[in-house]
């Protein structure tokens, strides 16, 4: 290796690590301060705590109703993502395999709808669905996520199904399988890579979403992002508790990411190519 190339490598190494440090430092800061007493935080937010206290975590845990918020987040994310996978894969299969003018237009409308910002709908949306929301707000939220997520998910599946040869469908129907059986037994298992993409992209969005849950959910059904925000607004002076609350809110998704890291990265890059 030439000297120049070696220096280039060293520079990349240095810049890379400096940046990596900058990217995680805010999280580190939050964690460090969650272990301190209020006085120590205000005195020097950067210092390593001399005496560690877990009191902040205990208080944050009860105040943000951590277990309930976590359960709500999980319920809403799991149901929305599963239903999105079921519905959009079927819809994409229909649109990709039935070539008529109608399916072409439906597909175009779905693609075009992806550009509509939620803000352009939210006002009439809330007026129209107020009753539905007050009847069952978690159910309503899941229903809304299906409506908002179906376009992108169908689009991703559509691209993938187009690469599966139609001979496979024909073979299944010659063997006497109905459309439904052929789809769920043969086509759907073949789409595992894109299903992973759809699951991860939607799960990240729904898990972290704030605006829609803020409009729809109540205190009893609040998700983790909502609980952190309300918590912070109420107890903004109690920095230690706020920091502990943030740590609690971040931990579940970070664990999930570290376990499924490969799937996350390949999922997003698959989604980006379309």
């Amino acid at each position, binding site marked *: 290796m030439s000297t120049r190339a070696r220096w280039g490598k060293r520079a990349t190494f240095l810049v890379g690590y400096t940046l990596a440090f900058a990217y*995680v430092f805010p999280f580190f800061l939050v964690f460090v301060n969650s272990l301190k007493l209020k006085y120590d935080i205000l005195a020097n937010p950067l210092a390593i705590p001399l005496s560690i206290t877990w009191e902040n975590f205990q208080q944050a845990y009860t105040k943000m109703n951590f277990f309930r918020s976590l359960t709500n987040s999980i319920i809403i994310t799991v149901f929305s993502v599963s239903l999105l996978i079921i519905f959009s894969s079927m819809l994409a299969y*229909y649109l990709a395999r039935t070539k008529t003018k109608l399916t072409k237009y439906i597909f175009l409308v779905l693609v075009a709808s992806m*550009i*509509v910002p939620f803000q352009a709908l939210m*006002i009439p949306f809330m007026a129209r669905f107020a009753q539905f929301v007050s009847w069952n707000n978690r159910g309503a939220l899941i229903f809304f996520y299906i409506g908002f997520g179906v376009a992108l998910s169908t689009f991703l599946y559509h691209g993938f199904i187009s690469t599966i040869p139609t001979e496979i469908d024909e073979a299944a129907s010659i063997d006497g399988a109905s459309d439904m059986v052929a789809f769920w037994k043969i086509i759907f298992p073949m789409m595992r890579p894109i299903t992973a993409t759809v699951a991860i992209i939607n799960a990240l969005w729904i898990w*972290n979403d704030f*605006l829609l849950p803020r409009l729809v959910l109540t205190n009893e059904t609040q998700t983790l992002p909502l609980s*952190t925000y309300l918590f912070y607004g109420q107890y903004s002076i109690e920095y230690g508790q706020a920091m502990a609350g943030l740590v609690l809110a971040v931990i579940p998704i970070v664990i999930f990411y570290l376990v499924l890291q490969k799937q996350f990265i390949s999922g997003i890059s698959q989604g*980006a190519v379309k």
Partner: protein
Amino acid sequence: MKFAGVPLAIFSIVLVVPFVNGVYYTFTDWDGFETTKLVGFSNYAESFQDPTFWSTLRFTALFVVVSLVLVNAVAFGLALIVTSKLKSANFLRTFFFVPNLVGGVVLGVIWQFIFNSAIVALANKYDWELFKQSWLQDTNKAFWALIIVTVWQSSGYMMIVYITGLISIENDVLEASQIDGASPLRTLFTIKIPLMAQAFTIALFLTLRGGFMAYDVNVALTGGGPFRTTELISLHIFQDAFANGNFGTGQSKAVVMFLIVALAALVQVTVSKRYEVQR
């Protein structure tokens, strides 16, 4: 058709109907509950007479342009670092992506602590004039605070889009350029970037859309303050409709927002597509 019925019905109920409804409402005297008569363009006229709407539009435009440029520049740089032949590339990639896992609200709250407390405490201790006052108290500095957090948050995601583009380039093309004696910089600009133009189209589209729709970070970091001077368009519409009860103008502004986003995205995609090389 049995495959398509349910999802299409939900899509129409949740998206199509409110959209059509919303556009119709802007031409009526809708007050959030009922409409009695058509009023033509008066809601739009009223929206554009609102000086805070104009300042929000300017602030949003500036935010979209600056965040678009910086997010993509940083993301592309990160992608180059991660795809270089560094041993620890995967390790670094993990770190760069982490801010993306966490929702905008949590990030906003974290950075509010950094800007309001951590940096101010340090500045007073070591006498850094620039940071003694919290950046969030000043409109111009708060703008840069929003940009910093946005870049920090979204560059990891766009990095993955660029990595996908970079590794899709065939190795023999790169080897050929090396044999021909092209410098790394030359290879980057004349071979890599043109061959991965599609990744730029996608990343630019996503950041453009994300910039216009930014809400979470805005709410949690500045809350629009000081004095509603750092409200991006999403927050402005939210405040107009849900805090002040102006449903007519709120919805007209939302329709204006939709038109701007659609137009900007259309222009961006058309221009970007022109640079894509057919392989």
